[in-house]
């Protein structure tokens, strides 16, 4: 691990980030449907006020205590530390788009004056970005690990070890009855949230997606869009996660998600895709090729349009439609990467300057066209 600077940062900006982070690698179990598996632990420090009651001074103290432990307990080969109160807004947005921090952490204490200067930070394991730790979000610590494909067990194993190492340096707020004490009682107990990012274009096209959503809700699971709470399922991407954290052990949550619930949804999506190409071939071909036309010929693209078209292109590759219709030899990884690079902050990073919304639509279409056409 490189030695951190006195201010705690390691000196490099988010520019040093991997062009293809772990969650877009298209590897592992069921990667045709499951983009990534994510595990999060909510933890608070004993003897430190929770976020709503903490003054700025209190938060600064919490931040420093956390930083000392996180940077000195060998959590990953290389840990980068970003003080978000010192970061510029574009970098904060970039971290949100990479799913390394929440929108809430990017904004700072919600609604309050001087929110942007609120002491808060994120530690990120580089270069794979498998580990990230938010400091002073809703809880003092929000630890997260991610793996490509359906791989919750591996993500859990890593986070469990990280949690132990951090706990060796810090005392957590814990009670025998309520478990790990969290700011919001909906997270109390294990403080654990296991989630998978699913790509479900087949179920959307067959119209069965609502059945899946209802079934998930009945099982007490939350279904969110690509960018979490309140976001729509743009690009047919859905995040599915457990909500119950009290009275259910980590092992039992892991088992239910990895061996019961997610495999069933994966099978349902695969079945839908097979049905579409055997029974509704022309219809699906039309959808895929229209999307392909958009990606290769459009001159203006919004983020949502691009993601919708990329979703269908991904379906086209995985079902062989794109190749069979003389479309292209583009691969899934390139599509996955584009899902990230068409996002506003990433797009501006790619072109190297700030753009307004209209300029972004032009730049996005040009950039996508370039990538897709050289790939094919």
């Amino acid at each position, binding site marked *: 691990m490189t030695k951190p600077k006195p201010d705690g940062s390691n000196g490099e900006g988010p520019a040093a980030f991997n062009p293809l982070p772990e969650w877009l690698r298209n590897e592992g179990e069921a990667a045709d449907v499951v983009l990534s598996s994510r595990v999060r632990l909510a933890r*608070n420090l*004993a003897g430190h*006020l*929770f*976020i*709503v*009651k903490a003054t700025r001074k209190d938060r600064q103290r919490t931040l420093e205590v956390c930083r000392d432990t996180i940077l000195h307990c060998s959590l990953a080969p290389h840990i980068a530390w970003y003080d978000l109160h010192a970061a510029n807004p574009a970098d904060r947005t970039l971290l949100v788009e990479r799913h390394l921090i929440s929108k809430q952490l990017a904004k700072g204490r919600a609604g309050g004056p001087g929110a942007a200067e609120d002491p808060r930070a994120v530690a990120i394991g580089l270069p794979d970005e498998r580990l990230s730790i938010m400091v002073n979000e*809703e809880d003092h610590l929000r630890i997260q690990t991610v793996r490509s494909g359906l791989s919750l067990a591996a993500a859990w194993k890593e986070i*469990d070890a990280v*949690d*132990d190492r951090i*706990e*060796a340096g810090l*005392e*957590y*707020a*814990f*009670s*025998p*009855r*309520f*478990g*790990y*004490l969290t*700011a*919001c*009682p*909906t997270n*109390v*107990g*294990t403080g*654990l949230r296991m989630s998978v990012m699913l790509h479900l274009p087949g179920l959307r096209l067959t119209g069965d997606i609502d059945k899946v959503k209802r079934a998930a809700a009945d099982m*007490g699971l939350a279904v969110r869009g690509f960018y979490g709470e309140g976001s729509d399922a743009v690009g047919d991407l859905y995040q599915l996660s457990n*909500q*119950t*954290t*009290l*009275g*259910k*052990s*980590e*092992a039992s949550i892991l088992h239910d998600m990895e061996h019961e619930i997610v495999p069933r949804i994966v099978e349902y999506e695969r079945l839908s895709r097979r049905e579409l190409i055997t029974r509704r071939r022309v219809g699906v071909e039309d959808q895929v090729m229209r999307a392909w036309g958009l990606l290769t010929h459009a001159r203006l693209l919004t983020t949502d349009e691009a993601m919708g078209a990329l979703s269908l292109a991904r379906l086209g590759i995985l079902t062989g439609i794109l190749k069979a219709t003389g479309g292209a030899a583009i691969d899934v990884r390139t599509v996955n990467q584009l899902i990230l690079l068409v996002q506003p902050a990433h797009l501006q990073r790619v072109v190297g300057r700030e753009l307004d919304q209209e300029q972004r639509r032009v730049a996005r279409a040009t950039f996508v066209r370039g990538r897709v056409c050289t790939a094919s």
Partner: protein
Amino acid sequence: MKCDLCENEATVRETSRRNGVTIEKHLCEACAAAQGIDTGGGAFQKMIEQIASGPASVNISIVTGGTKGGAARLSVCPSCRLTFNEFKQSGLLGCADCYRAFEGQLGPLVERAHQGGVAHCGKVPRRQSAGKPASPVATSSGLSLEERAARLRALQLQLEQAVKSEQYEVAAKVRDQIRKLGGSEA
């Protein structure tokens, strides 16, 4: 006016219509919270919504401002001075001690938020279990002996509290869990 369910002063009036009949309830803050009636807003409201959709056309109004002295349950956390009302506004607690201070009010809410889960089951910080020998022996419930003992202790504590606050449905559920773990209700 007294609360319909206990001796406290009623501060929440809930009117609901069922089959054309208007039902009016007068409750204290704690009992209202225990019934999942939201008197605040925001995140807390959302938490309640996640749990269950309430009865049709419910009308809630706060009759008097805040809880007056003499409440059986704490309405202020002694450590961070967060009031239960503030918690209801934001849905967020102020410190670890809030869980103890508001245990009575939080218990039923937490249970509903976690599909009936009433006590922690799973990982325990090493500091908490330090000093006790690690037990590799697993019981039929899949828990180690030590985990099972800790779980039973927590459940028994809860049973006591549920009976004390006359939350018999909760008590019954806790009793079931204790039986499942093969413990006694002493």
